[in-house]
C-alpha cells in the first residue's frame, strides 16, 4: 500500500535490483528537485518576494528572501483568523451546515427522482419509457449552472408567461441549488438504478412472477432492493459529486462553505490561507465519503455480489452522453478497485 491506499501495480515492473534502485534514486532526486523548485516559486510568490528574486537571481541564497514577509500570505497575521473560534463558529461552521443541508436535501430528492425515472425507463408502456428517457437525457446533458440560473429566473419567467407580478414569489439561492443538484444528479442516478436493475439476474424476476407477484411487487420487493444494494458504491460516489457540486452555490451567493471562506479571504486579505483551509476541508469530507464507498464495495464483494460493471459496459445499449453509469466501465469486476467517481 502506498500513499492514500492505492494498490501497487507491482506486476508492471520487476522487483528492482541494485541497478534499478540506483536509477530510481536518480529519478526520485530529479522529481524532488523539481517539486522543491515549484514549491519555492509558490512560496516566494505568495511571500511577495519573488519579484526581488526575478530582478536579481543571486538573491535566491540570501536569508531575507526566505524570511516570512509581513505583507505576504504566509505571515502569522493572515493565518491567525483560523485560530479564532469565532471565525469558525460564525463563518465556517454555518457555511458547512449550509453545504451539508443543501447536499442532504438534494441527495434525498435526487435518489427519489432517480428511482422514479430509472424505473420509468423500464416501464412496459412505451410513452412512459420515452418520456422518462427524454427527461433523463435532457437533464444529464445540460450544465448544472444553467439549471441553477434558470431556477433563479423562475419569477421572471412566471411574470412573462403568466403575468404573475414580481414579488409574488421569490426563489432563494438555496432552492435554486437544491433544484439544480436534484435534477442533474437525479438523472445520473436514474441511469445507475437502471443499470443496477438490469444487472439483477433474470431468474429472480421470473421466480417472483411465478409466485404470483405482479409487476409492481416484483419491482418493489425483488429488483429495487437488490439493485440498490449492489449499486451502493456508485450511488455514494455520485453523492460525493453532489456534495462537491454544491460549491456552485458560491456563484449564486448561497452562503455555503466556499462562500464563507471567500468572505474570510476578503475580510482579512488572506485569500491563499483561506483557499488552502477550505480545500483541505472539502478533501477530508470527500475522501471519507469515497472510503465509505470503497468499504461498501468490499463488503458487497465479500457477500459474493460484485458491483455489476458488465451492465454498464462501454458502448452497451445504455452508453449515452455524460454516462455516469460509465463509472464502472472498463473496470473489471474482479479488480476490487473502487468505482470511479464522475465530476
Amino acid at each position, binding site marked *: 500500500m*502506498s*500513499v*492514500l491506499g492505492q494498490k501497487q*501495480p507491482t*506486476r508492471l*515492473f520487476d522487483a*528492482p535490483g541494485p541497478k*534499478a534502485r540506483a536509477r*530510481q534514486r536518480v*529519478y*526520485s532526486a530529479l*522529481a*524532488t528537485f523539481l*517539486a522543491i523548485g515549484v514549491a519555492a516559486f509558490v512560496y516566494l510568490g505568495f511571500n511577495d518576494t*519573488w519579484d526581488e528574486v526575478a530582478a536579481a537571481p543571486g538573491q535566491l541564497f540570501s536569508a531575507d528572501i526566505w524570511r516570512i514577509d509581513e505583507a505576504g500570505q504566509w505571515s502569522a497575521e493572515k493565518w491567525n483568523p483560523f485560530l479564532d473560534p469565532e471565525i469558525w463558529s460564525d463563518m465556517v461552521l454555518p457555511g458547512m451546515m449550509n453545504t451539508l443541508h443543501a447536499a442532504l436535501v438534494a441527495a434525498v430528492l435526487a435518489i427519489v427522482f432517480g428511482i422514479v425515472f430509472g424505473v420509468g425507463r423500464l416501464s412496459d408502456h412505451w410513452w412512459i419509457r420515452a418520456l422518462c428517457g427524454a427527461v433523463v*437525457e*435532457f437533464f444529464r*446533458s*445540460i*450544465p*448544472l449552472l*444553467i439549471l441553477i*440560473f434558470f431556477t*433563479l*429566473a*423562475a419569477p*421572471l*419567467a412566471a411574470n*412573462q*408567461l403568466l403575468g404573475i407580478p414580481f414579488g409574488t414569489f421569490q426563489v432563494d439561492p438555496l432552492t435554486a441549488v437544491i433544484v439544480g443538484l436534484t435534477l442533474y444528479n437525479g438523472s445520473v442516478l436514474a441511469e445507475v438504478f437502471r443499470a443496477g436493475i438490469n444487472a439483477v439476474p433474470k431468474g429472480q424476476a421470473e421466480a417472483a412472477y411465478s409466485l404470483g407477484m405482479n409487476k409492481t411487487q416484483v419491482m418493489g420487493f425483488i429488483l429495487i432492493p437488490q439493485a440498490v444494494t449492489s449499486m451502493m458504491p456508485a450511488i455514494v460516489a455520485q453523492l*460525493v459529486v453532489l456534495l*462537491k457540486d454544491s*460549491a*456552485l452555490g*458560491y456563484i449564486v451567493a448561497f452562503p455555503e462553505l*466556499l462562500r464563507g471562506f*471567500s468572505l474570510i*479571504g476578503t475580510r482579512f486579505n488572506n*485569500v*491563499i490561507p483561506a*483557499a488552502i483551509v477550505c*480545500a483541505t476541508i*472539502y*478533501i477530508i469530507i470527500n475522501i471519507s465519503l469515497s472510503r465509505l464507498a470503497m468499504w461498501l464495495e468490499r463488503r458487497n464483494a465479500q457477500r459474493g455480489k460484485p458491483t455489476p460493471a458488465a451492465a454498464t459496459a*462501454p*458502448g452497451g445499449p445504455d*452508453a*449515452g*452522453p*455524460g*454516462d*455516469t453509469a*460509465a463509472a464502472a*466501465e*472498463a*473496470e473489471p469486476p474482479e479488480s476490487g478497485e473502487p468505482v*470511479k*467517481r*464522475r*465530476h
Partner: protein
Amino acid sequence: MEAFLSNYEAIIDGFSWTVRLTLISALFSFILGIILTAMRVSPVPLLRGMATVYVEGIRNTPLTLVLLFCGLGLNSGLGLSFAESVEWNVYWLAVLGLSAYTACFVSEALRSGINTIPFGQIEAARSLGLTFLQNMRMIVLPQALRSVVGPLGSVLIALIKNTTVASVAGLGVQEASREMKLMFDQGVVPVIPTFIGFAIGFLILCLPTGYLFGWLSKRLAVAR
C-alpha cells in the same frame, strides 16, 4: 422565440468560447492525464506518491475552488499572466484550471483501463526484456487507451459542461452560460425560450459527442 433568436450573435459568440475552452482544455488535460497515469504506475515510489497526492487532492476539491484559485491565487497572487489582453488572459487561466482538474479524471480512467489488460501480456513483455517505458508505450498504453474511449467520452462531456463554471468563478471568461445569465439579468428576453435555446445548444454539443465516443469505443474495443 424571435426575441431570443435576435440575439443570435451573442449566442454564437458564447458557444464559440465554450468550444474553444473545451478543445484546448481537453488537449492539455489528456497530455497531463497520460503523464499522471505513467507516474501513478511507475516503479519509482516517489513519483507514484506525488501523482496520487495530486490526483486525490484536486479530484476532491470543487472545480469552483480550483478556478477561484487560478483567478485569485495564480493571477492576482503570483502575478502569473499569459496574455496582454484581459480576455485572453482569463481564457488561459481558465484553461489551466480546467486542464488541471480534468486531468485527474483522465488519469483515473486510464488507470482503470490499465487494469483491463491481462497481466500475462505485461509479464510477457517484461520477459522479452522490454523496459518499463517501452512496456507502457508499446503494450500497455495503446490497449488501455482503446479500452477507455467510452469513459474518456464521459470525461469530455463533463468538461464541456464544466466550462460554464469558468465564467463565474473569479475569472469571468466569456462563454455560453454567461451570455444566458446576462440576458436573464437584463430582463429583455423571454426566459423560457432563452433557457430552452441554450439547453439545445448544449445538447447539440453533448449528445453527438456521446454517440461518437460510444461508436468509437465499440469500434476500437480490443477483441479478447
